[in-house]
């Protein structure tokens, strides 16, 4: 694994990010506007009912943005190469697939960390909500689990994009929404119907959001929830890497890799 080549891809990601209105809008503007929307909704509900329940919304939103931004960055990162017809140039360099994926995963983690701090800090003066009261250790563990989950989904989607090309590119920004209600990001899992609760309990994110909601009243670290989420993440992440490798190999075997560039 070459750090230099990983830094090269991160450098390219940086150049694309600072020169693309699309990335700025999709990541930073979207997160900011979601904070405004959910922040005011939280303020309204807090005035009508138990404030802790209202804060479920803004807590869920801030934590969900970690997943959305990291997954979006990972999946769309490769699409930038496809759209620019630069994919072959990248993959005929000495870079390995694992170096490329590592770079995209790190890029997603950095961007989501930045967005997390930005929206969290903005929420304090704007909506009198300080997510840091959940505790630094809690937040660190939430972040790690949510980022690994986003890597799992991002890598799986990336595998589909390599295999089937731009005809499935909408999954890069659309598929993750499916997991938002299934992870019970804004409400307790008990609200979901029975079969959906079973699906929810198979997702690592559900344990993160449950633990975060509980931490609003009691910031003690829920090690059980973190451990289950982490164990599930490891399983899903490993499966997604296997899936990606299979799809990547198929893409080269069927000639789709070359066709991806038009």
């Amino acid at each position, binding site marked *: 694994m070459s750090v230099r080549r990983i830094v090269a891809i991160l450098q390219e990601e940086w150049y694309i990010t600072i020169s693309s209105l699309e990335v700025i809008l999709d990541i930073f503007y979207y997160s900011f506007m979601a904070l405004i929307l959910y922040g005011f909704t939280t303020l309204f509900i807090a005035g009508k009912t138990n404030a802790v329940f209202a804060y479920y919304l803004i807590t869920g939103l801030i934590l969900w943005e970690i997943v959305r931004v990291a997954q979006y960055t990972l999946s769309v990162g490769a699409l930038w190469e496809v759209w620019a017809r630069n994919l072959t140039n990248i993959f005929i360099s*000495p870079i390995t697939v694992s170096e490329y994926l590592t770079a995209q995963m790190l890029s997603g983690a950095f961007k989501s960390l930045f967005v997390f701090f930005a929206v969290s800090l903005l929420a304090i003066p704007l909506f009198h909500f300080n997510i840091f009261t959940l505790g630094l250790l809690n937040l660190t563990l939430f972040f790690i689990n949510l980022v690994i989950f986003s890597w799992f989904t991002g890598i799986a989607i990336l595998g589909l994009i390599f295999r089937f090309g731009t005809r499935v590119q909408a999954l890069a920004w659309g598929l993750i929404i499916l997991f938002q209600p299934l992870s019970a990001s804004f409400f307790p899992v008990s609200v979901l119907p029975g079969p959906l609760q079973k699906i929810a309990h198979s997702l690592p994110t559900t344990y993160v959001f449950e633990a975060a909601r509980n931490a609003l009243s009691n910031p003690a670290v829920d090690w059980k929830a973190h451990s289950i989420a982490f164990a599930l993440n490891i399983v899903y992440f490993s499966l997604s890497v296997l899936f990606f490798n299979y799809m990547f190999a198929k893409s080269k075997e069927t000639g789709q890799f070359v066709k991806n560039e038009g």
Partner: protein
Amino acid sequence: MNTILSVSNLTKKFGTFTAVDDVSFQLNKGEILGLLGPNGAGKTTTIHMLLGTTTLTSGEILYFGKNLMTRRGEIMGEINFASAFNTLQGRVTVKENLLVYSKLYDVNKPLARIRDLLSSFEIAHLENERYWNLSAGQRTRVNLVKCLLNSPKIILLDEPTASLDPDISDKLLNLIDKLRSEQKVSILYTSHDMSEVSRICDRVVFMDHGKVIAEDTPLGLTKRIQNANIRLTFDAKKEHVGKILAGSRYKHEFLGNNIVSVTVKEKQIPAVIFVLSNADVWLTDIEVKKPTLEDFFLHIARKKKKQ
């Protein structure tokens, strides 16, 4: 000759369709090898197998004696590729794009190397220009700079002059020739422009239907077309000339009232002139068109169409 790329029994099947069928050839040090053939001949699939972006069904690719499948990382640092169909990141500047590739190829003193190459391609002033603002010719030159960043020993060029105007094409061909003569770089070159292939390639591998159907020097390939074409301008009655040529069973076509095009084997050219002169036909102009690489290409392409 020092073989630095050896392709043996390369085959690629997409389901039941065989795109490349048992192809073998060698590229020697300091040589420019043309890979030619009509559309669908299997050239692009071959190039992509050589780059590792398409997997082989069977066969072997050895760069510097090392197997591409097992020692990809080492090999990729020593070769590079440029194509008219691949571009760099459009919204990123030329310098930024090249800095990324310098890191990927572990280039020593990258900025100096980039500036040196940009200057040699006469595009130093474009360093801070976004790639998508460049003209087709400028993009091609930036792609070639990317291709040369790692001082490759082998370069694969896929139709590099496509969409370039003749002046820029000519400069590019001179540069390619200079690379070969000064740096002993070996080049695998695909193009549809037969005149440029004749000009710069030492040898040509001609592919059709996924197979190598001929491998020779450009001159050697043209010699395989035995027919030559003579265009004769005459001062006589058209019917009279037609009667003489038909009587001698020469394949001909009138291009006007006083011009006839005769297709014969090269060695029969004097006989055609002789038979017309003997019949008191005054020939005011004689133009002999010997077969070119393009004729060989057309010969293969037309044969394919008939099948």
